């Protein structure tokens, strides 16, 4: 009841006209900057931090919330329309979303992503308001061994992105893990696989690989078969809006995506990638039309996009309750608090209830504003696809270049982008799936680091993975998920043999 009263009070702060204006500006700026590929929510917030400097704390933080949520929305737009995921968390969205966009279903894809984000954001923000104290207790209990086990679960689900050949899927995955080895080893500070090239010390940037393989690779591929088998992009086919069927197929993925995103996002090292992958593979398994996956299934957009947004709200749980910044964006949000001498943490709720509850209330408002702002924009966005193909792909390459240069303006990084682009082309040509490679790059280093931390704490005893209930359970789930398909197949064959 107290929470509810505080939240109502928060709304009374956030609904002041001046605060609403800040929120609107934040939402607008966040969407505008977030649309640029390579510029994810973290960088969006960092770049716009100085803009908020002159405002009062409450106004500035509310604007922040708007920018944060706006940046998340913007990221999925490029993933769907241009197949250029601006951040690793939009990767899963791009898989089905871009296929839908090419088939003239960009409108419904953007709509299910916007409404899914809204639903997920709403539920997760309610979770933030009411469950934060409970959740945070659990989150802190997660040790390196538990994270490792979670990564293994995520790894097992990658097979959902393999396409029709396990060999080619695994090859792509292992090459991705190999790419993840490049750079400074986080635990010893040693350089691995850099061959004396200083530009490689920071490792391979996920967005560089993803944009290279997805967007640049596709530009090459489409150009290479232009005469023989011209690919047609249909800007709009059927309804621009979601059909009744689309709604029916979207609502459950939204809820499941939220269920993955919010709790995992609240974990200090959970991140947004793992829940989006889990959601993608779950939807693929549960989908009534499994044939559509890989050709543009709406479930594959609805689920991951909801998971992505829910995890964003999840990261605010440890940030507000403990002062733990658990993602790059959260770290910059923390800097935003600190520029007013505020330290988020257990005391902030007690000392500045206006501010905290005002912020949470403005998250609700930002969410509503985003849907109102984005739904009409869909018609405009989709028209982008009507641009003549040569200009469209030229534009995609320009935007990919720009995103890479904005974050890391070195020729070496550009060379990597285009090398990955060409690799993406070759992989498409010989029917190797590209997504597992990016997944390997994201999950490989995370799993390795957490395992090594776990073993460092246990002084090398691997039993630590099985002694802890959470990690043991998760590893059990991973094992079942890995073995079950084979067992089922075996049983079926057995049955068939009996008949």
């Amino acid at each position, binding site marked *: 009841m107290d929470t509810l009263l505080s939240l109502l009070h928060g709304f009374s702060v956030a609904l002041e006209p001046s605060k609403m204006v800040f929120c609107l500006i934040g939402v607008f700026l966040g969407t505008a900057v977030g649309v640029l590929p390579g510029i994810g929510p973290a960088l969006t917030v960092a770049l716009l931090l100085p803009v908020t400097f002159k405002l009062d704390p409450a106004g500035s933080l509310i604007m922040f919330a708007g920018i944060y949520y706006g940046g998340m929305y913007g990221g999925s737009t490029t993933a769907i329309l241009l197949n250029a995921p601006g951040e690793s968390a939009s990767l899963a969205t791009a898989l089905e979303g871009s296929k839908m966009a090419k088939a003239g279903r960009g409108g419904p894809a953007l709509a299910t992503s916007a409404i899914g984000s809204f639903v997920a954001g709403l539920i997760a923000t309610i979770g933030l308001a009411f469950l934060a104290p409970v959740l945070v207790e659990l989150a802190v209990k997660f040790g390196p061994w538990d994270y490792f086990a979670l990564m293994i679960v995520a790894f097992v689900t990658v097979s959902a992105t393999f396409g029709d050949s396990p060999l080619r899927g695994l090859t792509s995955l292992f090459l991705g893990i190999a790419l993840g080895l490049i750079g400074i080893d986080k635990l010893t500070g040693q350089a691995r696989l850099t061959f004396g090239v200083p*530009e490689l010390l920071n490792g391979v940037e996920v967005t560089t690989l993803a944009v290279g393989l997805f967007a640049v690779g596709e530009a090459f591929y489409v150009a290479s078969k232009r005469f023989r088998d011209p690919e047609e992009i249909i800007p709009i086919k059927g309804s621009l809006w979601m059909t009744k069927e689309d709604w029916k197929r979207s609502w459950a993925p939204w809820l499941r995506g939220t269920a993955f995103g919010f709790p995992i996002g609240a974990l200090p090292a959970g991140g947004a990638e793992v829940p989006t992958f889990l959601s993608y593979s779950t939807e693929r398994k549960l989908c009534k039309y499994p044939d559509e996956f890989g050709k543009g299934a709406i479930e594959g957009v609805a689920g991951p996009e909801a998971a992505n947004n829910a995890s964003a709200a999840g990261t605010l749980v440890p940030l507000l309750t*403990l002062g733990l910044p658990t993602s790059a964006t959260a770290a910059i949000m923390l800097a935003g608090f600190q520029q007013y001498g505020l330290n988020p943490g257990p*005391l902030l709720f007690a000392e500045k209830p206006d501010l905290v509850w005002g912020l949470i209330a403005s998250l609700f408002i930002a969410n509503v504003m985003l849907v109102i702002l984005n739904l009409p924009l869909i018609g405009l966005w989709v028209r982008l696809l009507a641009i003549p193909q040569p200009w469209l792909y030229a534009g995609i390459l320009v935007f990919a270049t720009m995103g890479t240069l904005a974050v890391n303006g070195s020729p070496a990084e550009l060379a990597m982008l285009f090398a990955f682009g060409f690799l993406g082309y070759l992989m498409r040509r010989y029917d190797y799936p590209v997504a597992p490679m990016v997944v390997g790059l994201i999950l490989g280093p995370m799993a390795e680091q957490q395992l090594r931390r776990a073993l460092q704490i246990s002084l090398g005893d691997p039993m630590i993975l099985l002694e802890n209930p959470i990690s043991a359970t998760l590893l059990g789930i991973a094992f079942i998920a890995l073995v079950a398909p084979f067992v089922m197949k075996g049983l079926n064959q057995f049955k068939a043999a009996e008949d």
Partner: protein
Amino acid sequence: MLTSILKRTALTAVALAALSTAAFAQVNELKIMAPAAPGGGWDGTARSMQQALTAAGITKSVQVNNVTGAGGTIGLAQLIGAKGAGDQLMVNGFVMVGAILLNKSPVNLTQVTPIARLTAEAEVIVVPTESPLKSAKDLAERLKADPAKVTWAGGSAGGTDHILAALFAQAVGADAKKINYIPFSGGGEALAAMLGGRVTAGVSGYGEFEGQIKAGKLRVLAVSSSKRLENAPDAPTLKEQGIDLELLNWRSVVAPPGLSADQVKALTDTVEKMVKSKEWQEILKARGWDDAFLAGAAFDTFLKGEIERVSKVMTEVGLVK
């Protein structure tokens, strides 16, 4: 809208400043390089300098550019390449000293022209409140008994936190090579490991742990500065507890090599004026940075001393061979 207001105030300020400070050598257009991605710590310092310099009307235009990679050493190489450029500064700090060694960088900080140290932050050694360790001495005893059983949580390998842990082991007479230091990515994860009670002790900048310390979830065993901190007067320094060790995580600005004495003076004057400006002091307060201005020969000597100390301890810990 905001920028135009800023510009207008800057212009009037420039006009006023031109009248009052003719004796100062001027740098009208300045480029500040942040050798890290936008949004990081060095980038924050560079952009804050930009803000203070233009708002206080000390320089007409300030450009910040980011050169990312290899712990800042790629930016450093570029700075060294810009020989004789009297309008170029680069932000750097303690962390770069270690990164140069760790990355076996072909360039190093002795090749640049040191201008001034700007800010510094004290490090703290903390334990969870339930921990039986009550003082730095207790921790030292534990460390001497069995360094493997004392797990440290902190930032990246070879960073400030790691170096403090190693120096601490050395100072108390434990085997620095055997410390069980676990680098976490970002303060958040390290903090979670502390709160979950999975590690013995944690090392970080004071700011990062402040909320938890004030909430009584973490206990400060020691601060690494020479004096107690203003906002944590109860936390004793290492020196008070008989451990001869002092370490500050500082940030500074340096300029390219091959500058004339006039150019160096102009840059130093510009930075000094900025440090004294109201605008800079406000930023320091807002961001929670401590003023640690040190310029000229004094900074030169300080920098050399830090380079020597870090390379010694990193070799002893086995981070550099």
